């Protein structure tokens, strides 16, 4: 069966550090959301917001959820989950984007 590394205990310092980073990123995402970046490039606001969210989620997954120290199998499961979610989002959105027109708008 899968070989076992000695169970890793994450030191408290790491938890506190990750926590502070999460708080900073939360402040950052609120602060940036106040500025209208859309006149620079249409989707810039949402891209920044999602990038920050992905960074925060990654921190939680890697440190709070110990994936950085977990077995290969756990890491594969995490990556597979994200991969499948992307399949669903990407293929469906690709269909909508490739149509001659986005579905009709309501009330316009």
């Amino acid at each position, binding site marked *: *069966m*899968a070989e*076992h590394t000695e*169970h890793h*205990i*994450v030191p*408290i310092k790491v*938890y*506190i550090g*990750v*926590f502070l980073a*999460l*708080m900073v990123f*939360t402040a950052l*995402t*609120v602060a940036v*959301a*106040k*500025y*209208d*970046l*859309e006149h620079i490039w249409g989707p810039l*606001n*949402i891209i920044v*917001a*999602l990038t*920050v*969210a992905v960074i*925060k*989620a990654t921190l*939680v*997954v890697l*440190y*709070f*959820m*110990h994936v950085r120290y*977990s*077995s290969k*199998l*756990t890491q594969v*499961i*995490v990556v*597979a*989950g*994200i991969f*499948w*979610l992307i399949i*669903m*989002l990407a293929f*469906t*959105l690709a269909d*909508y984007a490739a149509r001659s027109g*986005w*579905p009709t*708008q*309501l*009330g*316009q």
Partner: protein
Amino acid sequence: MSEHASHVPGLAHHFVNMEQQKEAGTIGMWIFLLTELMFFGGLFLAYAIFRATYPDGFLQGSHLLSVPLGGLNTIVLIVSSLTMALAVYYSQMGDRKKLVGFLSITLVLGLVFLVVKYFEYKEKFEHHLFPALGWYNPDPSHLAVQYQPQVRVFLWIYFAMTGLHALHMIIGAGILLTLIIMAQKGRFTREYNSPIEISGLYWHFVDIVWIFLFPLLYLTGFHVGGGH
């Protein structure tokens, strides 16, 4: 093998040893979180499609949500994730008192989140913003008439996603309560603490969902002004 295995506290009969049981539990929870990811994923897909279809509706809709309350809940959840992580740490250390303490703080924070959410929902109902037929009747001074049909789409996504998230918080609170009772009885030791670790994974996952919900729902229209 199996004779003396049965003497280990917390080891189920069909496992060979603690290591195998723990591995099964951890992988099981991760696979469960995979299903949760796909479950929420369906709603995220709907969000993406409808946001692209009704950009104005989403901007106006997000103005109906309170950024201070959403932000407060974000902070509450992040702190609760930290306390959950610390609870796992102290369970690994075998420190029962601190384990119970941090689990309790996590539970309280989870309840704070739900109370804030309750007031947010209450406000929506009072303003007739619940998107069901017969309920949805916003005041035109509150929400311009031309945006009302589009904002309705935003609002059902808001209620579906945060409602499903809140349901997970309620389940999480139930799990925490169970863990606190078990921990108080001294069920967990340095050797046997995987229920704490596994429940921690669940709690962090629920936190991650909120990390995405907050910017996608609350902050979407923040830069255009408005809001209240």
